[in-house]
């Protein structure tokens, strides 16, 4: 496998080269598939429990198909990254997982989105309940114009979660690694925090409702590098309790932080489709598809 990366002279010298050595030692939990590079498009993990599964999902804005025939499987308590060039439908795909696209008029989905085996778009499914279990963090931090305390407490309050609100707020802020910084100013406005702190506040807000899955739509793109690193460390900790799906433009971030990677690109008809999907290590060091290799080595995108 290393021979594949021993670049022939024609290789672009400027291209980013991510070597196997860049990755931490493979995790031991029984459930990680062996990197056998088996053929087939839906090359997800074989043994890990799947929490979200997309089956032949296509998404339409009016008559324009933004996402085409996507089938991927998101394993539980792992970080799955969606990477790809701008406009290839990554965010659209992410938002189908918690029915956020329902808010946009004149849209349509084909295929199935399964959450623990249940179709999220079934007739009797309440999107409000879906979003309580599948939370979301957005690209630009968007705390409510309320106090820090009320920001976190909002979700539990409206969902009627049992338990002491003070405890919920504190534990959410601790898990988001924000407690020490704000514990003395819980009554101050959430908007008075710095960008990185606001985003961690949004993460704390998302986990306050005890979701199963957290969807993150380029959460670090509006932040400085230091805050970005803090959030990535946070994600590594959150992974123990939550499943995370993250859309990112930053390939290094995907390589560093994720366990699984889904690479998407845009077809001729401007519909996004999944080129390759597998363990991050494989995608970055031994991609099967030429397009993937071009993208991860920085030749386009």
């Amino acid at each position, binding site marked *: 496998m290393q021979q594949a990366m021993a670049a022939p002279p024609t290789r672009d010298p400027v291209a980013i080269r991510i070597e196997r050595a860049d990755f931490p030692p493979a995790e031991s939990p029984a459930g990680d598939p062996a990197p056998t590079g088996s053929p087939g498009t839906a090359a997800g993990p074989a043994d890990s429990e799947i929490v979200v599964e997309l089956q032949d999902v296509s998404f339409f804005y009016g008559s324009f198909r933004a996402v085409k025939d996507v089938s991927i499987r998101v394993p539980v308590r792992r970080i799955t990254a969606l990477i790809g060039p701008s406009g290839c439908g990554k965010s659209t795909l992410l938002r189908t997982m918690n029915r956020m696209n329902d808010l946009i008029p004149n849209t349509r989905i084909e295929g199935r989105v399964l959450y623990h085996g249940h179709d999220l778009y079934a007739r009797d499914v309440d999107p409000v309940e879906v979003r309580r279990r599948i*939370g*979301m963090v957005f690209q630009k931090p968007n705390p*409510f114009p309320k106090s820090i305390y009320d920001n976190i407490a909002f*979700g539990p309050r409206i969902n009627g979660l049992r338990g002491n609100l003070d405890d919920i707020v504190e534990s959410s802020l601790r898990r988001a690694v924000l407690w020490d910084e704000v514990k003395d100013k819980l009554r101050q406005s959430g908007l008075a925090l710095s960008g990185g702190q606001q985003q961690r506040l949004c993460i704390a*807000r998302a986990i306050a*409702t005890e979701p199963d899955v957290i969807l993150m739509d380029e959460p670090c793109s509006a932040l400085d590098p230091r805050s970005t690193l803090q959030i990535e460390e946070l994600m590594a900790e959150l992974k123990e309790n939550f499943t995370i799906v993250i859309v990112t433009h930053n390939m290094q971030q995907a390589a560093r932080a994720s366990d699984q990677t889904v690479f998407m690109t845009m077809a001729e008809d401007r519909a996004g489709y999944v080129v390759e999907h597998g363990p991050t290590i494989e995608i970055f060091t031994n991609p099967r598809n030429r397009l993937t290799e071009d993208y991860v080595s920085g030749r386009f995108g």
Partner: protein
Amino acid sequence: MSATSPAAVAVERGLRARSMDWRGTMFQLLLLASLVLTLAILATLVVDVVQRGWPVFGERGADFLSSPLSTRPASAGIAQGIAGTALIAVFVALFAFPLGVMTAVYLEEYAPDNRLSRAININIRNLAGVPSVVYGLLGLAVFVPLVQGLAGGTGRNVISASITLGVLVLPIVIITAAEAIRAVPRTLREAGYGVGASRWEVTSRLVLPAAAPGILTGTVLGLSRALGETAPLVVIGASSTYFSSGDQSFLESLFGSFTALPMIVFGWSSRPQDEFRALTAAAIIALLVVTLAANAVAILLRNRYERTW
């Protein structure tokens, strides 16, 4: 390089303006002149009114404010007008504010974007421009008989007048509230939906509080307009001559004869006696004070809600 070297001088010369900006200066003067003219007109109005009317307050003061209408100028006062205007303010607010805000919420948050809702929006904007006398006639034709049927009497009372004025300002309230709601950023709504809020929860707990300052401003505008409108009052039959609600209870007087400050101004301005000139001016001063007070209250409310979150 010294400051007077040829290169430095050339730079300095280049940095200076080439010629005087005539057009810009002229434009600026024109704007200033417009402002001065507008203020001059307003100032003339205010000064003239105050000049004529102040003596009345000086001579009769509290008596003027507490006397009822009368045909004799020496004893005529605006007490009933103040009461009527105050009641109109309360009832118009109670009627137009909830109805207008709920309509705006529906139009912005719940109504689908189709031809029907666009047509409704256009129609509401048209209604805002309908002359007030037309609303008066509407009141006379619809609300007066309605109130008469419900409560007896002539139907020409402060209740029917308030409903009529409320309908008059409803389009203003709806339009400004709708714009305030539309101005709330989409990201706030998304954040609410993202933690599993329903549409009602997002609207009531996030959108409306964020739009509150704008909504209150719209209500102020509406209320100020309602308090100053005269034509509907004339058509509905507000009184400008002596009437008494002597033995009636408060509730009964609501359904009896009434008057309001604009009506008094209108009525007194057409009296032949010279003394009524000064009285009219004094009544105008009172009306201006009431309108300014209504504005001030709403601005205070708006500022209180417009915290720097």
